[in-house]
Structures are given as C-alpha cells and as structure tokens.
C-alpha cells in the first residue's frame, strides 16, 4: 500500500478511536465507531485474496450490525432520558441493547464467532491491530456506562467467553486462530469485572494489549503463522524461542509473570463482592488456555519438533525485520509482578 494512503488510513483509525474515547455525545461516539470500522477494512484487505475479502466482509457485517444496535440503544435512551450525554443509562432496555452491541464489537461470547475467522484471514500485522487497538474503543464505552450495565448479562457473557476461549483454542494449530481464542478468553475476564471495579478492566486491557503486541511481534519476526513454522525457530532465532516460552506462560496467567496480575486482581475484586464460585470457575477454565499455550511452547522451545534435515541447518543472519519496541514490550509483559503494590495509586 502506498505510504500516503497508509498514513491517511492509520490516522483515520486512530482518530476514530480517539473520537469514541473522548466524546460525551452518543452520536459522535457512533461516528467514531463507523470511522474506525471503515478505515480498518483496507488494512484487513492488505493481501488481495478471497480469504482476506471474506474476513473483511465478515468483520464489516458484524461491526456494522453492532453499531446499528448501539444506535438503537442510544435512541431508546434518548427517548427515555431526553439527552445525548454519555452518563448513567436509566432505562434497562437501552442498557441491554448497548451492552449487547458493545460485546458484539469486542467478540465476547455468544457473539464470538467472527473473531477466529476474521483473524485467520488477514495478515499478522492486521491481526495485531484487530486484536489490540480495536478493543480499546468498545472497552472505553463499557467503562463509561459501567454503573448501568446489567450484571447478570455481562457475567454470563464473561463466563461463556472464558469457556469458549479455552475450549475453542484446544484444537488449533494456526497461530492466528489461537490468538483469536485467547482474545475471546481475555475479553471474558475483562467483562467479568467491569460492573464491580472498572479500573481492573483497564489494567487487564493494558496488560493484555502489551502481551498480545509482544506475541504478534515475535510471530512476525519469523513470519510464522502455524505451529509448524514456529517450531523451526530454534534454528534461526534461539533467543526468541525463550521469549516465546516466557510470553506464553505469561498469557496463560502463571505467577510470577505479569499475566498473573490481572487474574489475581480480578479474583480479588470478585471475592470482595461475595462471588466465590464464579472466579473459581473462571480460574480453572483459564487452565484450558494455558494448555494450548503450553503446547505452543513445547513445540517451539522445549522440544525439537520433527523436521526435515534441511530445516536444521539454517544460517543465522542478523535480524533485519523491524521489531519496534520489542525489548520493553517483552519486559513489561513478563516482569511487572513486583510492581503490583503500585496499583494503589489508581484509587
């Protein structure tokens, strides 16, 4: 894609999200969402093949439907409250419609079906933007309307998302689908805590974005999209295999890595609100997630996957691919746990 066009499109995507996050008028928020969606369609279609077109179409259809649902919720809210300002939504129907629309945009269960298929059809870089940047805008709106969200609905969605994210990823070997199911599961964790303590949702989102960015960048270094191509990495980039090991364990939420911070904090907030069974169930289902991350690390870092002899004798060149900010990203994705007491500044 020609650089000027790429710049305009990237700027539109960022402006769209910024408009969503910074507005207090519902119409402008809808405008922001639409700008964001329209501008990201060319990014999703960078490779001009039928699979990418299918992915972009699916993305467009779901996001457009979700925006329309959001608009309907906004209109009902307008009818009952008489104003367009983003604040507490007193009407339950409007609140449920908005929640449904936003969870559809995020890819929470039961609206999760588009996430693996869209993520699989696009390039790694587009997938990275899809799974990280695109989550910020809906999450910010959920943050703003969090006092009025129906807890039962969102908790049900969260629980089923964690289950779907865990079980769906078990049979995958394609890395993009694995990251898609990982995104579904993490969104589930975030949705579970919004109504109780939205700050923890922001914490989880931040750490999830850091970890997903690092993971995608490591995959992009080797241009690997399948487990098989990842397993050849021990020969070309031996250090990166150790990074993938630690990053996968961090995504799975193992202490003492940073991926454990959001899980710990979320379970703490939920138990403070007298919910015991739900966090236990979510924590145990997160083990399913850990299983397929661990399988990735087995094939990448801990064993020598069956490969032809040609694969074992590659030259180790200097890294020529751009890995922007990779070291700080990896460090923040894995070693942030001792800084957990600093979370008290958020109060």
């Amino acid at each position, binding site marked *: 894609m020609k650089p000027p066009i790429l710049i305009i499109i990237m700027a539109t995507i960022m402006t769209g999200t910024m408009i969503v996050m910074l507005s207090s008028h519902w119409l402008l928020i809808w405008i922001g969402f639409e700008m964001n969606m329209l501008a990201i369609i060319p990014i999703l279609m960078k490779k001009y093949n039928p699979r990418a077109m299918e992915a972009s179409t699916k993305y467009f259809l779901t996001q457009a439907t979700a925006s329309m649902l959001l608009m309907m919720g906004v209109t009902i809210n307008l009818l009952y409250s008489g104003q367009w300002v983003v604040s507490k939504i007193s009407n339950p129907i409007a609140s449920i419609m908005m929640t449904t629309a936003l969870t559809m945009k995020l890819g929470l269960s039961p609206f999760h079906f588009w996430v693996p298929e869209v993520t699989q059809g696009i390039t790694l870089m587009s997938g990275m933007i899809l799974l990280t940047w695109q989550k910020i805008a809906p999450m910010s709106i959920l943050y703003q309307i969090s006092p009025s969200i129906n807890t039962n609905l969102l908790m049900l969605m969260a629980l089923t998302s964690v289950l779907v994210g865990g079980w769906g990823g078990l049979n995958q070997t394609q890395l993009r689908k694995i990251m898609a199911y990982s995104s579904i599961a993490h969104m589930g964790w975030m949705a579970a805590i919004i109504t109780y303590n939205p700050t923890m949702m922001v914490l989880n989102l931040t750490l999830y974005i850091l970890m997903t960015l690092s993971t995608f960048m490591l995959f992009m270094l080797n241009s690997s999209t399948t487990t098989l191509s990842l397993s050849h990495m021990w020969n070309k980039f031996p250090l990166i295999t150790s990074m993938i*090991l630690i990053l996968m*364990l961090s995504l799975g939420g*193992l*202490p*003492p890595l940073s991926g*454990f911070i959001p899980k*710990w904090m979320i*379970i*703490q907030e939920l*138990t*403070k609100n007298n919910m*015991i069974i739900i*966090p*236990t169930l979510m*924590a*145990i289902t997160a*083990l399913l997630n*850990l*299983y397929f991350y*661990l399988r990735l690390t*087995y094939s990448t*870092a*801990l*064993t020598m996957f069956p490969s032809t002899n040609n694969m074992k004798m590659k030259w180790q060149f200097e890294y020529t691919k751009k890995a922007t900010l990779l070291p700080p990203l990896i460090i923040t994705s894995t070693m942030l*746990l001792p800084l957990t007491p600093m979370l008290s500044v958020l109060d």
Partner: protein
Amino acid sequence: MLKIIIPTIMLIPLTWMSKPNMIWINTTTYGLLISLISLFYLNQPNDNTLNSSLMFFSDSLSAPLLALTTWLLPLMLMASQHHLSKEPLTRKKLYISMLILLQLFLIMTFTASELIFFYILFEATLIPTLIIITRWGNQTERLNAGLYFLFYTLMGSLPLLVALLYIHNFMGSLNFLMIQYWIQPLPNSWSNIFLWLACMMAFMVKMPLYGLHLWLPKAHVEAPIAGSMVLAAVLLKLGGYGMMRITTLLNPLTNFMAYPFMMLSLWGMIMTSSICLRQTDLKSLIAYSSVSHMALVIVAVLIQTPWSYMGATALMIAHGLTSSMLFCLANSNYERIHSRTMILARGLQTLLPLMAAWWLLASLTNLALPPTINLIGELFVVMSSFSWSNITIILMGINIIITALYSLYMLITTQRGKYSHHIKNIKPSFTRENALMTLHLLPLLLLSLNPKIILGPIY
C-alpha cells in the same frame, strides 16, 4: 533474609560470566557458602520467630527446610555435571540458571511471611521445574510428565488463591505473625467445608495424597537428576510446609474434614509401598517410596497433635535427604548403563564396593533404622496416630514392614548376588559421586546426634 536472597540472585550472573571450565566449580562453591549462611537461621529463640523484615521471617519450621534447600543446590550441581558434559556451553549455563532460579523461589517461599506472597512463589517454583523436566529429560514421556505435573498442581492451587483472597477479606491481613492472634474457630457448614477443601487441596496434590499422586511417578522418573533431586527433596515438602501453616486457620473443622484424607493416606501408604515391591524401574521405585513417606506426613499434619507435628517436620527433612540420595545413587547407575531397569545392573558390590556402602546406608535410612532422624519422624507419627485411633497401628506396622521389604529388595537386587555379564566394563566411581553421597549422608547422620533443630516449632 536478603543476605541469602541477593547472593542467590547473584549466582546467575556468576554462571553466565564465568570461564567455561569454571562454571561448575564457581556455582557449587558459592552455593555451599550460601548454605553456610542459612545455617545461622537454625538458631531459633524458644518462644518466638526470627523476623527479618516485613516480608520475610523464619521460625523453627521453615529454618530446617531453608537449610535443606540451600544445601541441595550445590549437590544438584555436582550431580548434573556428568550428564551435561556433552551439551554446548549456553545450554549448560541455562540449566544452571534454571536451578538457581528455582532455588531462589524456594528460599523465598519458605521464608515468606504473607500467605499470598507464599502462594505466588509456590506457583513460581513450577516454571523452572517444568522447564528442567521438559527440556532436559531423556525420554519422550517427559512431555506428558511436565503436563501432568503442571496441571495437577495448578488445578489444586487455583481454588487456594480464591480461598486466600476470601480469608484476606474476612480477616484483614494474611501475615502469618498477625493471623495467629486473630484466628476464630471455623464452624462446620457447607461453605466452610468448601473453604477447607480449597485451602488444603493444593497442598494435598503437592504432597502428594494417594488419589492425586499420578503426576509424581511421571515427573520424578522423567526428570533429569537435578530435577528429581529437587522435586523429591524440596518441592514435596512445600506441600507439607503449606499444610502446616494453613491448618492454623482451619480449626476445628479439621477434626471433621480430615477423615477422608486420613483414610486415603493410611491406605495409600500401604498401596504405594506394595507397588514398590513390584517395580522394575529403579527411579519409579524411589518415586513411589516418596509417596509412601509423604502419606505419613499427611497423616501427621491432619492429626494436629504436638508429637505429630514434630514427627512431620523431622520426617520431611529426613526424607528430603534420603530420597535425594537414593536418586543420586540411581542416577549413578543410569549414567553407567543408560537404563533404569534394576535387574540390568546387579551385583554392583563386587565392582563398586564404596558405592555399595552408600547404597547400604541409604537403604537403611530409607527403612527408618534407629537412631536416624527417619526413625524419629516415623516413630513420632506412629505414636501420635496410635493415640488418635488405636487401629492405625496395624496399618502403620504393615507399612513399616513393607518399607523395609522394598528398601532391602532394592539393595539386594542392585548390589548383591552375581553380577550380570555385560556390566564388567562400567566406569569406577568418580570422586564427585562419592563426595555427593557423603554430603547427603553426613547431615543425615549428624542430625541424629541433635535432632532438636529439626523437630519444629512445638519442641
């Protein structure tokens, strides 16, 4: 406590920056020096604990375990030298760094004063162990072993996290030293039963309890020697240590809830001891013997009498040293014949008489010969379980007999009798191996002169 933690952290730059022929020497020596520092903590005031800081403390229960952990690192390094000799330098340094990282987490776990801190480090010990087992094990079954190890432990410990956060909410703080003054009795109700289960299952899986012990034979057998040593000697004791700490919060419900686990442990120790009699795999035999000894510890901790706690602590330290020594001996066999099958290497006494002496002493301590500390531990546990219920003496007696049977079976099969024909050209014992066995055995024998230090806080 930083005077142990910071030197241990510094061991990692030491490995990476030492000259290639000095990595083993440097790390072993400095590891031994660190273990000397940890011995200072054995000097405990009678009615209090040694509090070093807000986060770390050591009392008579954790100090012997701390000494055991720091003592074990140089021993693990000595044991690993041979099987890593053919690996490239970076991988050797990675292996040593994993061992040191594990050591660091274990030290912090045993001296943690807050329960959530303890939990985080308890889980953190899983990662280096997983990497050691899966990356440096020798057979294809090691992948399955790592998986079983990780997931059994995590399934048990995630409810523990929820339970600890709930108790934190309820009590205000989870610091050991404060919590002992705020304990309220835990009445019998369904939710309290689940709380009890959530707190204890993590440690039951780690010990392991008989029904949940499936990960242990896999992990112990497939791990390389250092992995087996640290697993058997220290990681199992994490479960016992955790149980002893957390049962202070769970009274008097433990009297009611303990019955199923007592049944499982009492029956399990006989079952696993009997399986030992039919094992062909040497490491598997030692692994099942670990399950059997740890079942005694579970029984002791669940009875909650002063003598049983003393017995549990003594048994943990004694079993740590004995089991680690047995794994080292099995490894010395494995390095010579590259097989774990017992009958392939028979009659070693004629070929390696000094090693046979170590085999004899190790087997004798395993079957709890007086006056070793193994006996003190087992005897205290047997006596306290007899006072809990008279009938358990039958089961305990059967267990002691079967333990003696399989220990002697292991000794006789590997050492006595006519040697097998193909074994004549094995290498003689290295000085390193003899030093390793001595370093295991000396603390064991010397502690029988003054067992007071390992008898725990009740003494």
